[in-house]
């Protein structure tokens, strides 16, 4: 099953923020299945896209050593539907971190207008909780990040290219 809800990273600064693009296209079944007669990207998948950007922001901050999961959507507000042809500009900001989780705020803009905003909380699964072992098959996360142009734009807080993490 395909589960990529961001098309491309456009900016990534380690431990700080990230931006990306999600293009809404009518060839995605969910766009016309969700609300019959009214094509739109389901709002929950905008949360998912922002969570994918934010989850990688959190994951990278901890050197890809944690098992990061979206644990809570603190708030989500939608101001306009995302229709086929729309290009959503996602932006996420790392707000706070703990040894057991992190919070991220995120926005989606379309044509310069605020389209949605969310507060997300990520938790780090402890070993043995829910499932054992890594959350991704070997190489899957790395492949996903490559497809999303992560390594084209990702820099450290000092502006240097993100080093390759052995844990990926």
């Amino acid at each position, binding site marked *: 099953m395909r589960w990529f809800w961001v098309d491309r990273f456009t900016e990534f600064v380690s431990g700080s923020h990230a931006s990306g693009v999600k293009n809404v296209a009518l060839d995605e079944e969910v766009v016309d299945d969700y609300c019959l007669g009214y094509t739109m990207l389901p709002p929950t998948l905008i949360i998912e896209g922002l969570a994918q950007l934010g989850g990688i922001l959190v994951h990278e901050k901890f050197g890809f050593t944690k098992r990061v999961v979206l*644990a*809570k959507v603190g708030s989500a507000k939608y101001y306009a539907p995302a229709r086929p042809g729309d290009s959503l500009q996602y932006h996420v900001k790392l*707000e*706070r971190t*703990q*040894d*057991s989780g992190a*919070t991220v705020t995120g926005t989606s803009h379309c044509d310069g207008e605020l389209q949605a905003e969310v507060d997300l*909380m990520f*938790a780090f699964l402890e070993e043995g909780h829910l499932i054992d072992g890594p959350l991704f098959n070997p190489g899957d996360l790395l492949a996903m990040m490559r497809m999303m142009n992560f390594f084209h734009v990702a820099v450290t807080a000092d502006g240097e290219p993100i080093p390759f993490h052995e844990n990926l």
Partner: protein
Amino acid sequence: MALSEDEIFTKVQEALVDALGVDDDETTRDATLVGDLGAESIDFLDIVFKLEKAFDIQIPREELSPEDILTNSQYVQDGVVTADGMAELKKRMPWADLSKFQENPRVQDFGNLLTVGDLCNYVDSKVNQ
């Protein structure tokens, strides 16, 4: 800058209403976070983040969740916290009212111990120390 008891209570209340989706009037000082307000384990992380932001403090995990004590065989026997364990808990959590728990200190009951008032006392110990 020192905060008054009422200022702390109001901010703690806001954090709990936001994190748990409860009403203002439910968050009395005596209300327990788990039993009365329905907090689940993941909510505690959310509450910690909200308190850190509201009061500009750092909350180390072990200060609110003394799991290391409650899983230490030196302090727990047959699922019950020993006298040494109680002493350790009181040292770790001087802001918590452990008197009721102490009457029958079963580890399984510890999760439902903390009240809104305890949380206020904890924050007070952090911001007004």
